């Protein structure tokens, strides 16, 4: 028996959810009384193994190969398939990121396993691999048993806590699997300095009520709070924000510590995407807006007047 955690790094930096996956992996390995292997794929990534060690991996497989310098589906899938063949894990945990959702279903099909995506927790109950996950874009939660092995669990960011643990930390190096060349990497573009919505602790989001689509106050507040900017579908449809900012049933599902909804009425589809936020604050000029019925703190007021004051107050705290 073994648990495998597939980590995700871009340009030498791990996704936060990779640490969460390792922490959850260690917990599952302890429950199964077995060892945990962590896989890191990339090129020139020697130094990354140290970083992983403290989260309790017994074995760290480094697929360090120039062919893996950039993420590309087929090479990553085939190299991970080699690792799965060798390690024979019963449970495989990874982050439910775009890349996680690209790799995991393909590997799952290859090994005729079971997969649960966007999970908020995993557990072993009576020897069975179980997970909790949102369905209908967050409107419902389902507890499932994963019936096949390997069981793939893709964890949603910000769902489990990061915990350091002891592990043997033996390092093993392998090469990339190059047998397939059906995909070619052309280029990668990263938005410099933009905080990822799904990993942010604080999200300041705007909707149709943002005056003339001017998000500058929302951006400023989010920056002071070191958070990310989100948007309702209405704001995205207006062309005020990119699609990647959309929170809701057909956009991203987020679980920050604080979600500040500015000028968002709170449609059921939007709510589905942010209902698991720990604290919700809403600012809206319409006191009848449905968002208030589900918010911890509500402010009835004109955004263009309230936001500058909120920024002033937050600046006082942040010194």
């Amino acid at each position, binding site marked *: 028996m073994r648990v495998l955690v597939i980590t995700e790094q871009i340009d030498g930096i791990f996704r936060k959810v990779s640490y969460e996956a390792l922490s959850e992996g260690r917990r599952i390995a302890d429950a199964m009384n077995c060892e945990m292997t962590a896989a890191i794929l990339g090129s020139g990534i020697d130094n990354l193994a140290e970083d992983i060690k403290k989260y309790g991996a017994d074995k760290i497989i480094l697929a360090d190969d120039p062919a893996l310098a950039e993420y590309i589906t087929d090479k990553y899938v085939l190299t991970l398939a080699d690792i799965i063949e060798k390690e024979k894990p019963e449970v495989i945990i990874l982050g439910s990121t775009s890349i996680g959702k690209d790799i995991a279903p393909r590997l799952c099909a290859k090994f005729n396993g079971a997969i*649960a995506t966007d999970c908020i927790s995993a557990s072993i109950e009576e020897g069975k691999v179980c997970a909790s996950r949102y369905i*209908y874009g967050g409107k419902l939660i389902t507890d499932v048993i994963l019936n096949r092995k390997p069981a793939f669990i893709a964890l949603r960011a910000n769902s489990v806590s990061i915990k350091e643990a002891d592990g043997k930390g033996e390092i093993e190096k392998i090469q990339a699997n190059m047998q397939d060349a059906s995909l070619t990497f052309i280029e990668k573009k990263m938005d410099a300095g933009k905080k990822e919505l799904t990993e942010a602790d604080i999200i300041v989001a705007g909707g149709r009520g943002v005056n003339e689509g001017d998000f500058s106050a929302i951006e400023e507040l989010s920056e002071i709070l070191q958070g990310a900017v989100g948007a309702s579908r209405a704001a995205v449809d207006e062309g005020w924000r990119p699609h990647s900012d959309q929170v809701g049933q057909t956009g991203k599902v987020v679980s920050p510590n604080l979600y500040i909804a500015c000028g968002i009425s709170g449609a059921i589809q939007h709510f589905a995407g942010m209902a698991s936020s720990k604290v919700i604050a809403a600012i809206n000029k319409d006191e009848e807006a449905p968002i208030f019925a589900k918010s911890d703190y509500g402010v009835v007021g004109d955004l263009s007047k309230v936001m500058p004051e909120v920024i002033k107050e937050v600046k006082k705290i942040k010194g």
Partner: protein
Amino acid sequence: MNLIVLLKQVPSTESFVSVGEDKKSVKTEDVKWVINPYDEFAVEEALKIKEALGGTVTILTVGNDKAVEAVRTALAMGADNGILINDPDAYNCDGAGIAKILAAALKNIEYDLIIAGQRAVDDDNYYVGAATAEFLNIPHVSMVIKEEITDKTIKCTKTIEGGSFVFEAKLPALITTQRGLNEPRYASLPGIMKAKKKPLDTKTLADIGISAADLGEPMLTIKEVKKPSQREAGVMIQGDTPAELAAALVKALHEEAKVI
């Protein structure tokens, strides 16, 4: 260019879905059924490719009698023909079985490009697209916001958190859609009239050469379906001026909720 769209009918996102009596299912009797929004992007993209390069657009779905509506809607948008795999043995499949059925059906069809939604907005498991590509042994690119076909190659821009990748794949290939790829057209009235006469083949599992035994058990067993903890209305912040409201809000977030 033979274009295939994998389509699923789902409850519309405006629908209130609730927990079934057995607490292991989702009540869907009163919901409005629509084409999965991500599959609508797939239909639109296939139509755009057809308009630019010629070819046919085939809608492929697994479902029951009700799913005919969804296929007809796609035909009304402009797709050429539809295939509905309608077999009681497929009704209780989860994604694991569906991907096998789709792959089996596709083995008898010529295709250059398969377009699927990145996920269905009901079970949200992101499995079927990539798994179908794996079973067919063709490359896939997921969450595509832009594609360009030249010769026998498709160049795709794929979104990831905080950025994007551009990959090139040899055809035949499968891509899945991401919001931003296009704006799906509405079915026009003439389109709706024409759709009634377009071919829609209904097939059983036996017709496509697969049996219930080939599908295996569902990969997930549902233990319980529940509502997320219901949020209740909290405090309405009081104040006479924007400055007072802001000060009270920030104080509450800082001192009481301790989130900033």
